[in-house]
């Protein structure tokens, strides 16, 4: 059981580091999705450990929420790409200090 939790922690950390280091908004967003999927793995593993279904049901809800987030996120990244011809998070720097 511990192996799955450790794996989910590793995936979560990879996602987290990806968000902080990658430059392309789409890749940053993919890393966020990786974090959510790491959460799903942890939920399912814990559900198995505790022998109840709460964690598995949560995983379904998280998938739905992640799908909704993709819709909103890609829409925002699309509009900003169309105006700037770039999806780099470094270019979006008009607002500062």
């Amino acid at each position, binding site marked *: 059981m511990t192996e799955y939790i450790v794996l989910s922690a590793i995936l*979560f950390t990879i996602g987290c580091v990806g968000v902080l280091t990658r430059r392309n*908004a789409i890749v940053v967003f993919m890393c966020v999705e990786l974090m959510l999927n790491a959460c799903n793995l942890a939920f399912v593993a*814990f559900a198995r450990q505790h022998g109840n279904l709460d*964690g598995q049901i*949560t995983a379904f809800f998280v998938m739905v*929420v992640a799908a909704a987030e993709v819709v*909103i996120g890609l829409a*925002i990244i699309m509009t900003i790409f169309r*105006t700037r011809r770039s999806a780099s998070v470094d270019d979006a720097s008009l*607002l500062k200090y």
Partner: protein
Amino acid sequence: MTEFVKPSIEYFELWPLLVVFGVACLGVVVEAFLPRSVRYTAQVALALGGLVLALVGVVLVAQDVQTYDDGAARGVLAVGGTIAVDGPSLFIWGLVLALAIAGVLLFAERHLDGGVSAFAGQAAAVPGTDAETASIAANREHTEVYPLMMFAVFGMMLFPAANDLLTMFVGLEILSLPLYLLSGLARRRRLLSQEAALKYFLLGAFSSGFFLYGAALLYGFAGSLDFAAINEAVRNDVGNQSLLLIGTGLLSVGLLFKVGAVPFQAWTPDVYQGAPTPVTAFMAAGTKVAAFGAIMRLFYVALGADRWSWQPMLWIIAVLSMFVGAALAITQTDIKRLLAYSSVAHTGFILTGVIGLQASDQLAVGEISSVQAVLFYLATYGFATLGAFAVVSLVRDGGGETTAIDRWAGLGKESPVVAAVFAFFLLAMAGIPLTSGFVGKLAVFSVALAAGAWPVVVAAVLASIVAAFLYVRVIKVMYFDAPVGDGPSVAYPSVLTATTIAVGAAITLVLGVLPGPVLDLAAAAGEFIR
């Protein structure tokens, strides 16, 4: 494995939630089927009608709620224990709905910018292209903002009432997703607005990832997502303590991000500046109210027995938020960014209340509980912020709103009324006596003091002095500095914005002079269902 039990849905108690959600869905249908010419009227009427109906529902439910399970709290657990309709929930619902009604009025304002609203004519049209020129010439506007706002209001009501981690996560997302979109829909300064939406979205999604992983670890600790079951597991000291500690930390990251506490405040100034001002007004007030409701419910109900591990963390974050918010606000040259950093400082003050004494049975006579103090502070803060941003939308020049502070010089001569009202809101945020801010600060400081958090209170008083300086500086610019060039011009608002500002100012004054009734209302809200 337990048998599946069909949950009973308490339609009467959930009436306010269901109305807001129904109106949001209906708004989508209106958008699809009604011709463009009548959509504005239909959407505004639908949104206002729905919010008022929900507010009436909140009052009716509040009069009807019974004591829960012979405990200190009043209310019911609805939908199989996932939504707690208790006193604090109802107070927050009422407050969010009142702020949302004012928000709809600001959204609907079309008088300030020559007959169009503050939202983009067509968000899909790239700025500076023929498509955009055509959409401006056709006087188009996005009326989708009203259903989006209704979904956000629904999220703001679900989030603080959620009684398990899954419902809380869903509430958090329903509240956030529409706000990401709304931030990017400004008519003028589209690039800033889109950038704000991108930053808000990426950072918001990042922080909800932390929230979710924290929820997973807490589930691993307790074997249940239900707050009462988590509390039970904490009390009985079963399960892995490190899961509990790390889970609590990660959950706090997600929640503290939403309220903009230091060190998770980076998005606040950018989003507040870039978003259309009506959205900023609604979001600044509503999100903070909802998120603090959720913070209190999570920390008091689920993790109340584990107080000694999270209180020191909140001490540090409260002090940091107050000082960093106030100090950075002083250096700002843009009025919306200044108000954003001031909201970070206010987050610190409200957190001071959160670390106070919780349960009414621990209180001496005459003391107030921290739930009461925080709820009251949220009411004072919400209306002052909403009013202040509404005033910001009035001060304009040829290119739209003038938000640079030095361009506000001479506003006191140009329009004494607008300058006076804005000065009044700033004094309320500074916590000057006879304004609501003073009573709110007094309430949160006294509950923190009663809980023995005197170092935080001393820091809070010092930070209040720093913050007072920055508000007075803006007042000085408005009244005593010579105007630059032509000086600012003040657009005459329609009755919508004027009403919002007047109501905000009236509530700020009344809560400062006669705080009794609202303090009693917050006291009547009582405690969370545990």
